[in-house]
């Protein structure tokens, strides 16, 4: 699974979607599609283009990776996922790719990034967002990860969020 994700990310061909139609399409759909029998036709009418043009462009954007996915964006907080924790790991440089892919393949991890170490107070180079219904569940999942990774990681920490102060989605 991890391999699929990383390959999909790296193979993105740089297609330019900054033309007028693409920009208007992004603007019209980034807040969600209309929940109606014909969502793409509704958008097309709004933009004064054909339904076919909307579907084709969205397909191209999806294939090029400009769109990550099309689907339901669940409100995890409302669904009871309230124990989100940012886990951070210190992994030797020569193992970080392998470990990153393994972690990314875990169901309960939504994001997994490699970032630079900062200093000896912040030695972590791998970040993984771990989700669960509560803290105990997240802690149990971290233990699961620890068991899986064994001595391939040097140290780790977990940072629970206590307050969301600002969260703005991608906006044109």
């Amino acid at each position, binding site marked *: 699974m991890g391999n699929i994700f990383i390959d999909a990310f790296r193979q993105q061909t740089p297609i330019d979607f900054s033309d007028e139609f693409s920009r208007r399409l992004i603007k019209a759909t980034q807040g969600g599609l209309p929940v109606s029998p014909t969502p793409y036709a509704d958008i097309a009418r709004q933009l004064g283009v054909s339904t076919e043009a909307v579907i084709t462009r969205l397909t191209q954007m999806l294939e090029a990776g400009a*769109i990550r996915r099309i689907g339901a964006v669940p409100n995890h907080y409302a669904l009871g996922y309230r124990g989100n924790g940012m886990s951070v790991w210190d992994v030797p440089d020569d193992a970080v790719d392998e470990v990153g892919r393994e972690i990314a393949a875990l169901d309960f991890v939504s994001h997994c990034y490699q970032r630079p170490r900062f200093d000896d107070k912040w030695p972590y180079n791998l970040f993984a967002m771990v989700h669960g219904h509560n803290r105990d569940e997240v802690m149990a999942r971290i233990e699961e990860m620890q068991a899986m990774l064994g001595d391939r990681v040097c140290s780790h920490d977990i940072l629970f969020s206590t307050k969301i102060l600002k969260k703005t989605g991608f906006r044109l």
Partner: protein
Amino acid sequence: MHTNDKRPELSRLEYRLLNDFQRDFPLTSRPFLAIAEELGTDEETILKTLEGLVERKMISRLGPVFRPRRLGASTLAALAVPEDQLETVAAMVSAYPAVNHNYEREHLFNLWFVVTAASEEEIEKVLNDIRDRSRCRLLNLPMEDAYHIDLGFPLWC
């Protein structure tokens, strides 16, 4: 089961709509009809159920998740803020238009935020400004590689 759980009641259909359709939403003229056929129900039921999920805020939206433009730059940054200044510094950081996520976390580095701007230079400027104004230790941790970015994840109810 934990006492601090706040799990909502979901019908089987609601669960499947939330769980099975985070990706691969049909790019066809009647996508909800296609989903209805897959789930063995009718289009109207699907639409009504989705409307209900939106109303109850179980679903933020249904549609494309765009990747931020490749042009431009972003980074994850953190500040170690003394507890008694946290509220002031947090508000100061949130006020920057370039800051689009800002979280309080339990750690010595207790304020975590994402900065997005047109260029690295602009990010550097914002970070220097925040460092100068807050007088706090700052971590700048730009992404070096991504193994998995928000492709949806399964729900275990």
